[in-house]
């Protein structure tokens, strides 16, 4: 069917450029409760997504470009569907641009070969391992767990000559731990996305979550104070890199699209911060080449090869992240999609970082700053008041501040960690944040 689609596209003189993505997906899902399996599902799907670029004249008779996108299922009608895409492309008026040319593609590791040997068996094994691991913690109970595995094969061909294929896997695991009884019962809810089962770090994560759950039982009310706040692990990753399925503040403000529309104040060569930098310097790469990163790929939807872009160096913006279109408008190199966020570690070991009295935030309800200003007021699900001797858990209260201001006054750990879409320091001490109890 791909050949038929290509032939129809080649035969249409109104089309300036096109690309076709043939995507095949196979998935396995298992949903477990404490003592039973709730559901078992197998999923398969296949489709062709076609982007068509046409040139036309806008209302003022100026040259313009537009894209029409359509999707065809196997056996679906081709010519009529492509005509719809051409019509749409001719109605959308933007500054002229073109699709990317072919370029050599890097080898990026994306697929879990162990999972692919037996997908349903692999996810079942993950859930069994989780149960076995949980048995080591008599103070917590595993009451629910879900594990999904997916293999996605993408074959991209384009009128410019791109002909590339990549195979990627995704593993999703969530579980619920309970501790205590009756009115005092508490829970923790964990979600992890990775490309490989091995990167779930099941033993380490289960141990950490079991500890959190039992600490919640002892948690008291929140303090009200301003001072150093330590954030570690996945909570730090979501603060800096955003949730796996959504973007981060840094990602939003560094896009070529936002620069073109005048909605980001960031400028190349200028500090991204509003005031003085009091902490460690901030150095970020937008990295699609990170092995098994959730946002890694060999090529993106347009076919732009994966790159590791030096985005922010010594607090200054070095580049904007742009697809071919916005790169053309801004006259900058096309980077393709953002990918994963890689952050340069600091020089301070965690032991030293945590030596002085501080507050540690283990888990937010949801760290969701304003997507353009960075202001936040986020509820604390579990925190610790650390005075140098004791480590007292607390829950509730708000962490208040502005993310950019917080990143300008931070000490990064020298130890690093990999959390789905983030590679960087595994702990940070934000030197001046407010907790409202």
């Amino acid at each position, binding site marked *: 069917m791909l050949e038929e689609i290509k032939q129809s596209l080649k035969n249409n003189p109104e089309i300036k450029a096109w690309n076709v993505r043939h995507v095949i*997906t196979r998935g396995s899902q298992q*949903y477990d*409760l*404490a003592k*039973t399996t*709730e*559901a*078992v*599902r*197998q*999923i*398969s*799907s*296949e*489709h062709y*997504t076609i982007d068509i670029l046409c040139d036309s004249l806008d209302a003022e008779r100026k040259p313009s470009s*537009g*894209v029409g*996108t359509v*999707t065809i*299922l*196997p*056996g679906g009608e081709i010519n009529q569907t492509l005509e719809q895409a051409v019509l749409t492309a001719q*109605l*959308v008026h933007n500054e002229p641009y073109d699709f990317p040319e072919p370029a050599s593609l890097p080898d990026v590791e994306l697929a879990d070969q162990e999972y692919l040997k037996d997908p349903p068996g692999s996810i079942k094994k993950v859930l069994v391992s989780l149960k076995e691991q949980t048995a080591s913690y008599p103070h917590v*109970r595993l*009451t*629910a767990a879900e594990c999904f595995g997916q293999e996605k094969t993408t074959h991209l061909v384009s009128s410019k000559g791109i002909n590339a294929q990549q195979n990627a896997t995704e593993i999703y695991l*969530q579980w*619920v731990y*309970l501790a205590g009884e009756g*009115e005092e019962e*508490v*829970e923790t*809810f964990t*979600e992890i996305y990775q490309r490989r089962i091995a990167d779930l770090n099941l033993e380490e994560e289960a141990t950490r979550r079991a500890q959190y759950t039992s600490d919640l039982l002892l948690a008291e009310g929140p303090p009200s104070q301003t001072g150093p706040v330590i954030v570690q692990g996945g909570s730090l990753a979501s603060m800096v890199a955003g*949730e796996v*399925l959504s973007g981060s503040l840094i990602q939003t403000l560094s896009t070529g*699209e936002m620069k*073109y*529309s*005048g*909605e980001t*104040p960031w400028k190349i060569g200028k500090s991204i911060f*509003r005031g003085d930098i009091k902490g460690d310097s901030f150095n970020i790469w937008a990295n699609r080449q990170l092995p098994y990163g959730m946002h890694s790929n060999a090529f993106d939807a347009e076919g732009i090869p994966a790159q590791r872009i030096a985005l922010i160096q010594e607090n200054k913006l070095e580049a904007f992240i742009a697809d071919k279109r916005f790169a053309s408008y801004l006259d900058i190199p096309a980077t393709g999609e953002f990918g994963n966020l890689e952050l340069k570690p600091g020089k301070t070991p965690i032991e030293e970082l945590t030596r002085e009295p501080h507050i540690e935030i283990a888990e937010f*309800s*949801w760290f*969701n700053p*304003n997507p*353009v*200003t960075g*202001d936040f*007021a986020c*509820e604390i*699900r579990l925190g610790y008041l650390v005075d140098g001797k004791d480590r007292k858990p607390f*829950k509730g209260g*708000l962490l*208040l501040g502005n993310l950019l201001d917080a990143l300008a006054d931070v000490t990064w750990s020298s130890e690093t960690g990999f959390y789905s879409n983030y590679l960087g320091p595994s702990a940070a001490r934000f030197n001046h944040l*407010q907790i*409202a109890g």
Partner: protein
Amino acid sequence: MKNNNLKPEMNLLRPFLGDVVSTLESTAPYGAAVLSSRETVKYLVDNKQERVIIGDPTAGAILTAFDGHTLRERAIGGFDKNDLLQGAKDLLRDSSFTKNGSIDPGLERKHDYQTTMENDPAQVPTSEKLEYLREMNRRVNKIDSRIVNARISYVEFREKSIFRNRTANLSQDVQRVHMSIMVTVMGDKGVVFDWVSKCGTAGLEILTFTDEELETVVKNAIKLLEADRIEPGEYTVVTAPGVSGVICHESFGHGVETDMFLKERAKAANYIGRRVGSDLVNIYDDPSMPGAFGSYFFDDEGVQAVSTQIVKNGIFERGLTDLYSATVLGIPRSPNGRRQDFSRKVYPRMSNTFFGSGDTPLEDLISQVENGIYLPKMSSGMEDPKGWGIQVSCHYGFEIRGGKITDNMFSSIGLTGYVPDVLSSVSAVSSDFNLSGGYCGKGTKEVVPVTDGGPHLLMKVRLG
């Protein structure tokens, strides 16, 4: 039976679905077959660009076999008869079922449903939709020269499905539309924005904006440049319907989806028949509400849409169920079995969730507040079904002084509290009513369209 705008390939497969269900029930106590197509088209016009984006397709068949203990499903992309028949064989070959107990397939019913529309988006050319967005962009930009960008987005969702089990042969064609106007301005503090949106299960006829609505969103965006952060503390607040809605969504919405009962995640499971709020608190979930964004005719398990009262005069009555949770818990079904798309499992999910209106005129309610905060706009919320904590992020709020809303604006306000404390503090409920539409997930996945809302509420909460 009339076929209502379903895809031709879905109609071709429909006559075979009864045989597929019979095949499934030759081995499993209960079988069902669903054909599901969900299409999304997004249009965007702003000051610098135009886009028409067609969302990833989600079209396929779902075969379900259930014995009261474990749901077994095959989800097959596309609508190919041979794939469907092979899928049924594979499902039975790979599964074993216990035979004790029976699953109620519901009453005999056959019906085709379709959203009532004056102006069906499918009948309106792309050129007209784009021109409407361009005109809206021009209208907004004329209001103030400080506008950096006016992003006008319009999304149409078409959900077509056929549900077949032993007793039901149903189809629905649900049209959802959503239009949002986001205004960005830049000042010394950086970039700030405000937005206004409208949505529903309807046609394009609901997507009109008055000059006053556009002027208000621009005025508030500009005002945000000067807004202060609020001093953390406990406040008397008046929540507008959008904020009231998030409070009920996060408190007695997520926390009463009964998969949470099975997972032992819901504190509400121990509170059936017990007081959880003041007498003034009534909470409903109603997928049959005409025109609401979260409405449908039947859920993804073929259950007719009707209203469910969750909290009655402050007493928790019941939760929201799907087939699995109702069967295992032995409680009545509600029409809340929903899946993100054919590739995902059904969960008990909210539809349109709201506080019931009271009888206090809004002016009277606000006049009761000597010192407080008016919260007109939410930006997000997060549930805590076990701890009964609540987090609602509000885009901004205005000071209330001497019974009047002032121009003194605070921005990025976090509302938190312990759910029974928050609901028990509700001391007045206005007589107005409004719903806001959006999308809701379970954790970070399983996204479905919903609304929440209700009237204005007077309460005491913690702000930061």
